[in-house]
């Protein structure tokens, strides 16, 4: 028994050292030197070098001259039969339906699993386009062209869904049509 305990302890220490210390530090070193931008969070910086977000993470947009992302709900994990879910979706519909009379794409009223989903579907972007064109005073054609240009196809033609990154889309709006004034 004593011998077993001794072996168990030394095996624990050795595996702990190699898997819990050597391995993560090695990955940090190698990963960091190969992909420094990715390991630190794919952070987007402005001209002054301040971080304005990560291209992988959703951020909030309220200004009507920007595309808005999927809602970030306080209460998630709701079942399809949940009253709370139904009223939440109804409230969201009431809030945004004045933007466009067409049916609202489902991703714009449902919350994602992480609450950090940076993407919306192409349908959701096109649905928002008229409002952006209106508030930025540009032709709708230019907005839809921008959406088409920034649309991410399924990876390697098959994996995942066609989608648009909201932060990148809004940054591209600012580059093409200038930073919106006021609005908030």
């Amino acid at each position, binding site marked *: 028994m004593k011998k077993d305990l001794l072996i168990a302890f030394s095996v*624990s220490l050795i*595996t702990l050292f190699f898997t819990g210390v050597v391995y993560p530090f090695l990955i940090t070193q190698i990963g960091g030197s190969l992909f420094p931008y990715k390991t630190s969070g794919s952070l987007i910086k402005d001209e002054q070098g301040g971080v304005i977000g*990560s291209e992988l*993470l959703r951020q909030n947009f309220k200004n009507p001259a920007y595309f808005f992302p999927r809602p970030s709900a306080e209460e998630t994990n709701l079942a399809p039969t949940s009253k709370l879910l*139904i009223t939440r979706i109804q409230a969201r*519909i009431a809030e945004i339906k004045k933007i466009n009379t067409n049916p609202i794409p489902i991703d714009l009223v449902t919350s994602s*699993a992480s609450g950090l989903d940076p993407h919306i579907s192409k349908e959701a972007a096109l649905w928002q386009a008229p409002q952006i064109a209106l508030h930025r005073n540009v032709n709708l054609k230019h907005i839809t062209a921008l959406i088409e240009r920034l649309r991410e196809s399924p990876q390697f033609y098959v994996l995942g869904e066609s989608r648009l990154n909201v932060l990148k889309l809004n940054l591209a709006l600012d580059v093409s049509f200038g930073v919106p004034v006021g609005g908030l």
Partner: protein
Amino acid sequence: MTLNGILQIALLFTTLLFLIKPVGIYLYRVYETPSLFPLFNRLEGKLLNWCCFKPEQQNWKAYLKSLLIFNIMGVAILFCIQRLQPFLPLNPENFQAVPWALALNTAVSFVTNTNWQAYSSEPTMSYFTQMVGLTWQNFVSAGTGMAAFLAFSRGLSRHSTSSQDILLGNFWVDLLRSVFYVFLPGAFIIALLFISQGVIQNFSPTLEITTLEGGRELISMGPVASQEAIKVLGTNGGGFFGANSAHPFENPTPFTNFLQMLSMILIPGALTYTYGKMIQSQKQGWSIFIAMVILSLMGILAIYYFESQLNPLLHGLDLDQTPGNLEGKEVRFGILGSALFANLTTDTSCGATNCLHDSFTPLGGLILLLNILIGEIVFGGVGVGLFNMLLFIIISVFMAGLMVGRTPEYLGKKIEGKEVRFAILSIALYPLIILVGAAISVLSPSALGSLHNGGPHGFSEILYAYTSATHNNGSAFDGLDANTSWYNLSLALAMFVGRFFPIYLGLSIAGLMVNKKIIQPSAGTFPTQGALFIWLLIGVILIVGALTFFPVLAIGPFIEYIDLWQGRSF
């Protein structure tokens, strides 16, 4: 359901099919003929020296004893790391010690390869706890699963001529080989692939940023990629962040999603080939693999279909519901990427989630529950999946023997009363823990207070919690707030018994089987390969595994389904 979705399923299973043989052969050589790798031999000599033991063969009792001592010590060390967190390095957010009930639950959870997380990682665990404590157990709990399988299959395939049954191998050697030759190299490659796609790996403190509109937001950081790789490869499933594989820093692109799914089923799938080599019958290995693939495909097609349905309670609203049930799912994965991931994470004992299982349609959620309830033998956890599958095979052979009226045999060895009793006991243990645990919780007002959903779905949340814990899965219907003393302690017990009691029973079967005389197969021997056997096995799994739970599933998901279509909400 779209054509592209079907293509993605086909791509995943084709890739798996091509990898089964090379990985299976590699695993066989690592464990059974290590002399083929001179470098490994030298390393192993050093390791054994450091750990001061001789790699002698163990009988089943000695093997089990080593396994238990190592795992109980693992619980103790992990518990201490969490309690001492404020005094340890790499704690930039200055997190306090983890409360003791939660620390115990988490320690048991990671040691048993469950990775049930009653906490949300971001405001609880320091980088040190996650990296040194949790990542370490991600590796060695997977190694323990492999070791359990190796001892069991050696008991079935080897034959001891003396009465001393000392041919089951050595636990410490099997464990070290798993960690150093299988999981470390595998995780290393996968972690770098993850990083190339955007999974983060750093030690920066949480970043506070000013958004494009001038708002303030927090970005969590940490050494994620290293933990993420072993999380899927070792079918552990405990996320670095609370959102698990839905978090864009854990699973940023559809390709990482694909890679995570492939990693979950790679080793459990390849082990069927390794097993074929061990018993010198590749056909039997492939038969097990085909049974697994058929069961998995049935699951994924059902889930994909149900999750593509519209929610009838949202009819009449000004909505375009074409894609399906997107509540709790990420746009980049879509319905298929979420449904397939959910199916495989419950087929295996992984339990990582890239979508909210709680928000699945009633019947989509039912399949997830069923996948776990039939024993996680469809690929299953690394090692333990095939381990449990072998128990089902013993029962199938026994049933076939009853039907034709002959003494059942498996691999030329007679299956007798004791072995069958142990196998049945192992399978009957699960409903006992799951149903009793769920029943007590349903009767206790304080346990019901943890529910966030009403009606039959609330019941499903509790059922799912005990199912997931007992079968060491670790995924959850997360609406249940499980961080209470009752759930922390009762689920910790469920995880511990659900992990080690079947291992005990399996190893004692191995101890019995290794001493049996080999008899030549005759015309009356039921073949354990080929189409007939595959269908018998699937039938036994579905009847024995699933029917036990039919009543309890009827009052959970089935009633919820009827409610949904009759327009009732809660």
